[in-house]
Structure formats: C-alpha cells, structure tokens
C-alpha cells in the first residue's frame, strides 16, 4: 500500500523539476515531463485500485510521519486509501493527464510555459493531498493548496491587472469559506478529540441526530464547501476565474478543484446524515444555485463564461444530490461532469485557439466544417450535459432528479426546469459556435494539432460511455458505481419508487428536452438569431440577467467599499487623530508645563525672595493646621 505515497509525490517531483529547472528546460520538455509524471501517478492509482480490490479490504491508511502532536491533538500526515479517495484520485490524475497533454499544445509558445506546468503539477499534488488525506487537517492542507494554485493560475498572465484582481478575488472568497471550514474542524476536534476520519466517524454515532453541535459542525464545514465549490453566496469568483488559461479552467474550475466541496461533504456523509437541518440548507442552496446560475448562463456571450455558469449550476445539482442524502449519486455526477465539462472547456479552448484568442460567441459560427473533431466532441459533451440518453450526463442527472422526486415532487419540478434551461443554453452555445456561417471575416480557423485533439476524443468517449459505470436497476443494471462507493459513503436510503413512475419521469423529461432543443434550433439556426451586442438596450429582466443580476456590484457595495472606507477612517481618524496625538499631546503638555515652570525663574531677586517668604508662610500655616 505504501505505493500510495507515489501518487502525490510524482506530481510534486514534477513541480520541483519544472519549477527549479525552469530556466534550463527547452520549449516542450517541461510539458512532457509534467504530463508523464501525472500519467505515472494515474497508473499508480489504477494499480492501487486493483491492489485494494484484491486485498479484499475496504480501506487502507498510509502514515507518512507525525505532523502535529500536542496533548490530545494528534495529527498524523497520513493518507487514506478507500473507494471514495481512489475514485477521486483516478479522476484527478486521469483527467489531469489528459489536460496536461492538451496544454502542451495549447500553451505552446507562451514564454512562461515552464512555470505554467510547474504550477499545474503543484495543483495536482495539492488536489491529491486533498482527496487522499486521512484526516481533516491534511485535507485542509490540500484544500488551501489548490486555492493557492488556482490563485497562481488564474493570475498566470500577471501583466493584466484585471486578471490579478480576479485571482485575488478567488483566493479571498475561498479564504472566507476556509475560515468557516477551519472553525468547523476545530469544533469537530473539541467534540470528538480527533480529526482523523475513521475515529471521528466511529464516535459520531454517539451523538443523537439533529443535536446543535453536529448541526453547527456540519454548517461550518458547509461554509468551506460553499466557498470552494462556488455555491451561493460565494460563487462569484468562479466566472471571473475564467481569466486563467483554458486548460486551467478545465482542470481546476470544472473537473477537480470545485468538486472538492462535494468530496468533503460526501466524505463526512456520516456527520451530515446526523444533521437534517444542514441537509435541508444544502438542498435549498444547491437548487437555488443550479437554477440561478443556469438563468445567468442564458445570456452570456463569452464562450468560457457560459461554461463557467453551467459549471456553477451543475455543482448546484451535485449539492442538491448531497442534500438529498444521495452522496454516491453526487460523486457519480462529479465523475460524469468531470468528463463532459473538461471536454467542453477543452473544446472551447480548441475553438478559442482556432479563432486566435476570440472568446465572444457572437463573432463565431459555422465552425462545424472547419473544426470537425472539436465539433463532434463538443456535441457529445453537449448531449451529455443536457442529459440525453445514453450519454453519461443522462444517468447521473436522472438519478438526481428521481431522488428529488422521492423527496418532494416540487423539488423535482424545479430541478427539471433547471435541466431544461441548461439544455437550452448549451444548445444555444453549440449552434452559435458551430452552425450558421462564420461571422468574422478576417480569421481563418484551423483544426488544432493532434496533441490537443486526442485528449478531446478520449474525453468524448468517456463522456459518452461514462454513464454505464452506474446503470440503474431500472435498466437492469445494479448501480455498480454507487455500490462500489457505499463502503466509504453511507447514503440515505429512501424508499425505492416503482419503475412505472420512474419510466414516466424519464419519458417526461425526454419529451421536454426534445422540445427545448428544437426551440433552440429554431431560434439560432433557422432564424439564425444572434444575441444583441453590448450596446443594445435590453428589456429590464434580460438586462439584469446579462449583468448577472448585479451580484458583483452588490458585493462590491456591501463588502469592499465599506471595508475600504473603514480602513481609511481608522487610519485617518482613529490612528492619526486620536491614538497618535494622544501620546504626542502628553509630551507636548509636559513641555508646556515646563515652559510655565521656567517662567517662575523671573531672574529678579525681589521676586525670588517673595516666593521664598510666601513658601515659608505657607509651610508655617501648613504645619500648624495639621
């Protein structure tokens, strides 16, 4: 099992090589080294998967060394290898490998390509720490590590102040979540006297369901998850994070990092099962985010922004699943989403690459013929995300929907609505980019090189067939994926609904999806409508949507500005007008007193004599009265 150490160490090695030798390495070497090392660790993870299978155990712990050990606080630097972490490891390393390879082509010619790969490797390392940590603190190390890497990579093109701002925004929003997270860990520790998963979960049974402590713990942990997984109210950083290079968006802001929150909650499923209140909160937040982000997605004209908002909304679905207690389903959706969303981003990247950096879908169109590979893969991904059978998205999303139905048909309705919106804006994107005729004359799109297209194809296959990992009983499957996870994740088992209703639901959703797709086709291909330019006045609601409901402006007004003015106030008023002078004035006051004292020294004798005599008389009176 000590093989597991290799999994994070290989990317770390890659980071060190590419980082330290970044002056020596020639143009492609860094990329190749980085990709190879990540690929290696993918292979290692797969072998681990089989080793664990053969060993027959459910989990294994590998302790590296004792990190902190004070009193009852004992935090080993240890890795936990179980079905959940293995799944995540394979996703991270697998997708990571593909994206690394893709980046070789995409980042080709950038003068800081070496440090790019160094940072990508560092990210992979931190992400692996996150998913492999055997206790909450090691998880937190990875948690903050990926935050740092995302900061670095979003601001990769540091010359542009806007990008730097976006990077800082991402980091700080994550930090806000992290504060809640760390407080949650502390409460956890002081309740269970341990932060190691196994020990915590053993003792968790002792608490009765819904006790304040457990609710508070889960809520605090949830705050962390909200920040990391870009849920309301902490989601605004993710769209801005698109400032980074496209592979970064694919790896960090679609496939892996943003799902860390889901992973963490799934990992703590036992705790969350004890806190129904928190679960309801999660349901509300998840659903709200899903729909809200989807609506915003309708009006975005930047290809990456659209994908960003769709990511937020998909994460919302995952939270919905978590809230419904269907943790394995959530993880399943994480997996499929990793496939098709990575694919979408890489495809978008390939498009942007082809368009010479152009990201505005209003200036694209008619690329179907120019970029056949990209088009086909993109199409597969679109179908997957829209939940068209038999693409992977269908399975995962359908499971979530049915779970919602089990809980409450209202939820189902809302969730389905969100799904339809998703479907609409995705096809809008597809049509605007690939159909119609080219709306920009002077660029001559060309298909990307093999090093970029091959990963696209692989991902396309995955997002097409990925669903069959987890065939529902309905279709004669036995939920292989979910049952595999069950050893690590204890999902709430709702009452199994009968197959006729389930069929009915699927049928309903398929019909609606068909309608939506046709509508989109009608609007964007038949009528060939193009979203209005920024200069055009839109009706109020559309305007609000196009401006993301002014949430950024709201935050700026509510948090940033007051903080700034408070800072100025404290410095200009409190520090410079009260505290500082307070000290100086004491000095000045004494100086004045000194001047007065010296005025006594008039220099003429009569006065002195007077003073002395006065003194004498006063003293006589003094001693005679007391």
């Amino acid at each position, binding site marked *: 099992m000590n093989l597991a150490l290799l999994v994070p160490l290989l990317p770390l090695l890659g980071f060190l090589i590419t980082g330290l030798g970044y002056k020596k390495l020639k143009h492609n070497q860094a990329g190749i080294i980085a990709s190879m090392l990540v690929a290696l660790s993918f292979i290692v993870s797969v072998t681990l998967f089989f080793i664990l299978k053969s060993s027959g155990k459910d989990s294994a712990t590998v302790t590296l*060394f004792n990190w902190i050990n004070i009193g009852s606080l004992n935090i080993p630097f240890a890795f936990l290898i179980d079905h959940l972490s293995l799944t995540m490891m394979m996703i991270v390393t697998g997708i990571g490998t593909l994206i690394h390879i893709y980046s070789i082509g995409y980042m080709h010619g950038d003068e800081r390509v070496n440090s790019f790969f160094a940072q990508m490797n560092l990210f992979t390392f931190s992400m692996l720490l996150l998913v492999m940590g055997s206790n909450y603190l090691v998880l*937190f190390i990875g948690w*903050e590590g990926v935050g740092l890497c995302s900061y670095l990579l979003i601001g990769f093109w*540091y*010359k542009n*102040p806007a990008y730097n701002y976006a990077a800082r925004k991402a980091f*700080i929003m994550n930090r806000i979540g992290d504060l809640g997270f760390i407080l949650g860990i502390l409460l956890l520790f002081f309740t269970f006297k341990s932060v190691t998963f196994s020990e915590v979960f053993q003792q968790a049974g002792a608490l009765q369901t819904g006790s304040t402590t457990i609710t508070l713990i889960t809520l605090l942990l949830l705050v962390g998850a909200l920040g990391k997984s870009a849920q309301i109210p902490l989601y605004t950083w993710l769209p801005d994070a698109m400032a980074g290079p496209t592979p970064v968006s694919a790896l960090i802001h679609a496939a892996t990092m943003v799902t860390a929150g889901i992973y963490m909650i799934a990992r703590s499923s036992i705790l969350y099962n004890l806190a129904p209140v928190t679960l309801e909160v999660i349901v509300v937040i998840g659903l709200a985010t899903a729909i809200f982000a989807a609506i915003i997605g309708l009006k975005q004209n930047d290809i990456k922004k659209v994908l960003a908002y769709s990511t937020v909304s998909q994460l919302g679905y995952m939270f919905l699943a978590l809230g419904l207690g269907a943790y394995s389903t959530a993880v399943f959706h994480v997996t499929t989403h990793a496939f098709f969303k990575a694919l979408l981003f890489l495809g978008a990247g390939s498009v942007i690459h082809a368009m010479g950096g152009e990201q505005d879908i209003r200036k694209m169109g008619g690329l179907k013929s120019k970029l056949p590979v990209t088009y086909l893969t993109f199409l597969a991904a679109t179908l997957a995300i829209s939940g068209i059978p038999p693409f992977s998205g269908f399975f995962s999303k359908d499971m979530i929907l049915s779970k919602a139905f089990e809980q409450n048909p209202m939820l189902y309705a809302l969730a389905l609505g969100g799904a339809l919106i998703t479907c609409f804006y995705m096809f809008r994107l597809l049509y605007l980019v690939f159909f119609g005729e080219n709306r920009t004359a002077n660029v001559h799109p060309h298909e990307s090189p093999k090093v970029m297209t091959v990963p696209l194809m692989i991902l396309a296959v995955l997002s097409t067939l990925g669903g069959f990992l987890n065939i529902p009983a309905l279709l004669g499957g036995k939920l292989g994926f979910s049952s595999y996870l069950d050893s690590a994740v204890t999902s709430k088992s709702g009452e199994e609904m009968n197959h006729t209703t389930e069929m009915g639901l699927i049928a309903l959703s398929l019909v609606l999806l068909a309608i939506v797709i046709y509508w989109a086709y009608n609007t964007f291909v038949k009528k060939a409508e193009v979203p209005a330019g920024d200069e055009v006045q839109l009706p109020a609601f559309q305007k609000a949507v196009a401006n993301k409901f002014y949430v950024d402006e709201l935050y700026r007004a509510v948090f940033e500005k007051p903080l700034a003015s408070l800072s100025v106030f404290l410095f200009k008023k409190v520090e410079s007008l009260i505290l500082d002078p307070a*000290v100086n004035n004491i000095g000045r006051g004494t100086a004045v007193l000194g001047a007065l004292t010296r005025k006594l020294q008039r220099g003429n004798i009569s006065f002195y004599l007077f003073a002395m005599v006065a003194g004498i008389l006063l003293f006589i009176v003094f001693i005679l009265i007391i």
Partner: protein
Amino acid sequence: MILLILLLIPFISGLAVAFFKGTQAARTFAVASAILNLVITIFVLVNPVSEGYSAEWIGFMNIQFNLATDGISLVMILLTNLLFPFVILAGWGRSQRNVPMLNSLILLTQAALNGVFMAQNAFLFYVFWELALIPVYFILLVWGGDDRKSITLRFFIYTLAGSLFLLFGIIYLYQLTPGSHTTDFSAFNQLQIPEQTQTWLFWILFVAFAIKMPVFPFHTWQPPTYKMASTQGAMILAGVMTKMGIYGALRFLFPIVPLGVQFWQPVVIILGLIGVIYASVIAFKHTNLKTMIAYSSMAHISLMAAAMFVANEYAVKGLLFQVMSHGITIAALFYLACLVKEKTGSTEFHQLGGLKNKAPIFAILFLIAVLGSIALPLTAGFVGEFLMIAGLFQQSFWYALFGGLTMILGAIYMLYAYQRVMLGGQKPVFEKVTDLNRLDYIILIPLLVLIIGLGVFPQPVFDMIKIAGSALTMAH
C-alpha cells in the same frame, strides 16, 4: 557555564569590533561571531544543559547573576541567535557609515537579548531589558531614515516609560519577598499576593510588555519607527524585540500575578482581538509597503497576545511556535522590502509595480514570504496560527472567529501588496531593475527554507517547548 559563553561571545566580540578599522574586516568578524553563537545555541539545544550558571553579583541586595534556560527561553534564544547572522549579513555590500560601530552595536544587542532570555532574576532581567534597548536606539538614531531624530526619541521614551513601571513592579515584588529580599523569579513565583494587589500590579507589570509587543492601543510608536528604521534595525525590532514583550509577559504575569491575569484576561484578549482587526483593516488601505508590513506584524502580535492570555496548552504552544515563525517571516519580509527600496528607490505602492517582469525569482521569494505571513498550510505560519485559534476556540467560539479573521484580512492586504509591487505590466522606469544577487540568496533562501520546513516538520519545536508549555498552563 555554556550559557555564560552564549552571553559573552557577542558581548566581547561586540566590544572588539568597535575598534576595528576596516569595514569588511568588521563585518566578517561580526558574522563569524554570530554564526559561532548560533552553533553553540544549536549545541545547547541538542544536549540541553540542566544546570544554569550562577554567581554572586550584588551581595548586600542579595542579587545573583544567574542564568538558566527552559523551553520558553530556548525558543527565544534560538530565534535570536538564528536571526542575528542574517541581520549582520543584511548589511554586507551596502554603503553604511561607521560600519565597525554599527556591527558592535548589533552584537551588543544580541548579547543583551540573550541575557534577557536567560536571566533567572528579575533585576538581571530588567538590566538586560534596558541594555537591549540602548544599542537599538543608537542603531535607529544614527543609521535610520528620514526624520529619525524625533521618531527614535519618541520610540525610546515610550518604551522606556513602560519599562520604568516594570522596574517599580520588580522593586515592589522584591520588597515583598520574605527574609533577606531577593529578586529571583523562583522567589517571586512563590509569593502569595492578595488579589486586589494583583489587579493593579498586573498593569504595572504589563504596560512595559504591552508597549514592547505592541498591544493595541500602545502601538502608535511602531509603524513610524519600522518605516524609518534601517533594514537591520527593522529586522531586529520586528524579529526579536517584539518577542521580548511576549517573553516578559510569560515570565512575569502568569507565575507571579495569576489572579490578576484571571481578572484582566478577557480585557486583554479583547484588546488583542481588537488589535488584530484594527491593524489588518488599516493595513488594507495602506499605501506604503514597509508600514503595511509593520501593521501586519502588529496584527500577528495582537493575535499572539490574545492567545497568550487564553493560556491553554494549544494557545501557548501555538504562541511559542508562532514566535519562531513570525520572527523569521517578518525578518524576511523586511529584508525583501529593503530590496524593493533599493531596486526601485521607493516603497510607496503607487510608484511600484511590474517587478516580476525583470526579477521573477525576487517575485517568487517575495510570494513565499507573503504566503508564510498569511498562514498558508505547510508554512510555519499556519501551524502557529492554527494552534492559537484552536486555543482561542477552546475559550470561546467568538474569540476564535474574530482571531480567525486574520486569515481573510491578512490574505486581502498581503496579496494586495504582492500585486502592487510585483505584478502588472513592465514600468519603463524599472527597465534597469535586476534580479537578486548571491548575497540576497544567502540571506533569503535559508529563511524561506525555514518557513516551509517548520511548516512541514513542526514537531521538533513542540518537543523543545514541551516542558515549558505544560509548566505554564500549570501556573495559570
């Protein structure tokens, strides 16, 4: 005996250096002695000396000259002797006036600091306490920056005022001791002082430390002083001298006036937390790199003060660990700030920006130091702050919440500073800017390696302070 050597090496070499003629000779000699001291310190650490050094000093007042170490003082001594070689190195290759005198003053400061941390006798402690102040005063006065005269005088009077009250407290305790009076800490610790006495005595003793640290609202001397201080002065002040306050508080308050501590505990903790928020918020809009670093230091120190008064095991150990990490980090930051000043001629943000283009390595090292100061995991800062917040949490959730705000606010202003200094497009005025030279590597790399190394392997430090921490919590 070895402790005495630890004290004498910098003292004697300091006196000797003053008579050197050659600049480079003086520097070399000073560095050599500092490194020698570091080696001896490490030797003391690996095989700790159980017995201290003791000698008769002032017979008729029954004051001995006795030195000893425990976990707390070991941390402090290690930090001191660790930083001073770098402090002296920081002067190399730079044009300074009267180098022999400067180095001699620095070494004398080192000697005095070692004395402060080893003294087992309040009187001796006080003497060293003042002795440490004098050379620093002259370092600031002679080698400082703009309008140093008034600022240094103010700094000096301010700190001295505090310590004179400490002197009062010491004498008061001294005449409380039974029989032929003594100023040994051991004797002080056994005093049974009535509670209402402790309640006022607490402040008499605490003011000195509160000013040295500094705790809000006794901090006003600090930002201007750091701003005008020469690099070496700032490194000494921020790196080590602030720790004197913490050390003194640990030495005096908890064992001697525990009831007073209990009485004032909430007040001081809240003052500390106010300091955290206050300093961070001010730093957020500050326009000068050095003062921003000063305020960030104040924020950290305030958190340490709060944690100290929580005084449970996590808080205290976290505090002592943070002493190490903060000392190293802030020293590195000030050195980096000085590099910025040298390369661009200014530390005002609006004149800076885009240094990364010409000096990428500089930017990376700067970033590492920044991350250390915003307590990213696997840097030393995180371990300390995590434990301190844990300690605060054990006392009250709200303490932990407000203390934890440093995580957010610190990130806000430090990254802002990093962005304003390093990132952004190439500025034409900085065409000539060069990347780091070998000396900078010699100074920065070890410090940064320590920052990360301590973050990855903190346990040795905890083993070092095991005795102290538990003893202290007992005393509380």
